[in-house]
């Protein structure tokens, strides 16, 4: 028998708590408390100029509801999220198949494919700002020289094309993330299932739609929800690309909360707007959990 006395460093139950506690306290202090604070602000008249707290009940919410811009940004958020999510998943699945394939120069291709996601979003969006410029846009130059358009499309100046641009840039930037998530799922599919289907004479498309996609459905769902949550709460693309314009055509809830709460200084109204992100976010999280559970049950 060991003569060494079992010290505190050996008691699993004690150790488990001591090792976990710093993280839990930190997260409670800087995520939990700010969240409660955000709820409290939504019912207050706090502004950046006058930070004293006065309870105003649902005053902020009535003010926010009376503002057409709020409804516009809510609709924009849903449109932005819905369209981006579908595109992200479709392209993400295609890229994932490419990422697991074997070919020469794979390293370089992977590097180039990951660029949109690993680059700080504010910087890559700046590149797009010039790509979609009203006069010098390389996109328009190409289209002009292909003879597809006579005059430049003013991408960011028209409400419809501005929204389209924001959606496409967001899709471009999040697709690599979805691809990596789906790739993780594809790697986990046992190769012999695919081999068996191949021996049975199933072609590429048949194997794709009847074997691979059904088996990786949970992980595709996870990728879709990640894309949705990150798009739903994102303001960077529309902030850098259009500042929410032209006339709020690309304002989303997050950017509108920023303009109201930080640039407009009305913390109460900003918090009330941001709070609308929460119920939909919660639904998304529950959906992710269920998808993950199905993944584990497999």
């Amino acid at each position, binding site marked *: 028998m060991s003569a060494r006395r079992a*010290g505190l460093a050996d008691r699993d139950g004690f150790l488990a708590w001591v090792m976990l506690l710093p993280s839990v306290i930190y997260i409670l202090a800087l995520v939990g408390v700010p969240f409660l604070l955000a709820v409290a602000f939504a019912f207050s008249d706090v502004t950046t100029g006058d930070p004293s707290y006065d309870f105003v009940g649902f005053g902020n919410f009535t003010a926010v509801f009376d503002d057409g811009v709020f409804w516009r940004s809510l609709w924009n958020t849903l449109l932005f999220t819905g369209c981006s999510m579908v595109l992200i998943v479709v392209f993400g699945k295609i890229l994932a198949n*490419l990422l697991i394939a074997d070919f020469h120069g794979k390293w370089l291709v992977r590097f180039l*494919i990951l660029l949109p996601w690993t680059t700080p979003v*504010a*910087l890559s969006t700046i590149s797009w700002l*010039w790509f979609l410029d009203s006069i010098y846009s390389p996109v328009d130059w190409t289209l002009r020289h292909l003879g597809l358009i006579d005059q430049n499309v003013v991408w960011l100046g028209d409400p419809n094309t501005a929204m389209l641009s924001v959606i496409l840039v967001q899709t471009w930037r999040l697709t690599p993330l979805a691809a990596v998530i789906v*790739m993780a799922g594809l790697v986990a599919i046992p190769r012999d299932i695919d081999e068996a289907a191949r021996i049975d004479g199933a072609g590429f498309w048949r194997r794709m739609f009847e074997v691979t996609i059904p088996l990786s459905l949970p992980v595709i769902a996870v990728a879709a929800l990640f894309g949705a949550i990150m798009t739903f709460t994102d303001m960077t693309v529309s902030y850098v690309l259009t500042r929410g314009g032209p006339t709020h055509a690309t304002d989303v809830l997050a950017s509108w909360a920023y303009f109201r709460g930080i640039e407009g200084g009305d*913390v109460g109204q900003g918090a009330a707007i941001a709070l609308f992100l929460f119920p939909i976010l919660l639904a998304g999280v529950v959906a992710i959990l269920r998808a993950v559970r199905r993944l584990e049950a497999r």
Partner: protein
Amino acid sequence: MTNEALRRRYARRHVAARCGLYAAAVLSALVCALPFLWSLVSAFKQNRDLYDPESNPFAFNEPATPDHVTFLFADTPFPTFVLNTLLVGGAVVLLTLALALPAAYSLARLNRPWGTPMGIAIFLVYLVPPSLLFLSLTRVVVALGLEDSLWSMIVVYPTITVPVSVWLLIGFLKAVPTDIEEQAMVDGHSRLGAFVRAVLPLVFPGLVAVVVFSFTLTASEFVYALAFVSSSPEMVVSTGVPTQLIRGDVFFWQSLQAATVVTAVPIAFLFNLFLDRFVTGFTMGAVKT
């Protein structure tokens, strides 16, 4: 059909599949990287080349010039932004490891009944978006007297990096056989000693992956950095470049493009080195032991 004909048919089909694969690879790489390739070209363009709607945007119509890149490094605060990003990133990575490593060990190895649900709960914190918290966190930062300081980001960013890192580390720790600790404990180490001496060296590759991942997340963050810091000398790359390299309506386009490429390439390079490890970490985290 003879064997020979069959063989040739399969060979033909194989060649076709390879061609399709390479075509798809080249096309996807182009779509993803085109803005960056184009940034690289325009960073070296002369003004009268760039500001001519008729000149080919993908080629040099006038001789290339390094002036705008030199300008970026010599006459703009860009070097300061890079230094700040490295400082914030380094500090956040250290804080993250200090918090996440013990937490992950506790959740992966010490067999508490609440291990798995707690791990999932911590991971879900990652999905709480900055756009929901930035208003109240800005008030917290002001109350702590950290506004317009790098410290504001160092203190707050681990809220983003800790949850992901805990999840990744749980995955890496589960991959280490329990025998290793048991052997170390038989050899006279305490549980904690076994973790430090026997397990840590084995998860070192995983630790490096977590460091890279946390740093990438930190460098990309935008909303908090924008809300907390408004003075140029304390800005990081992700906020400094879009807000400070534009004077009024004047964009320093070539310098902006150079800044994008200079930032994008090293991060993507590092990330690519560790991609396979991230994938393993994420999937292992969900596996029950």
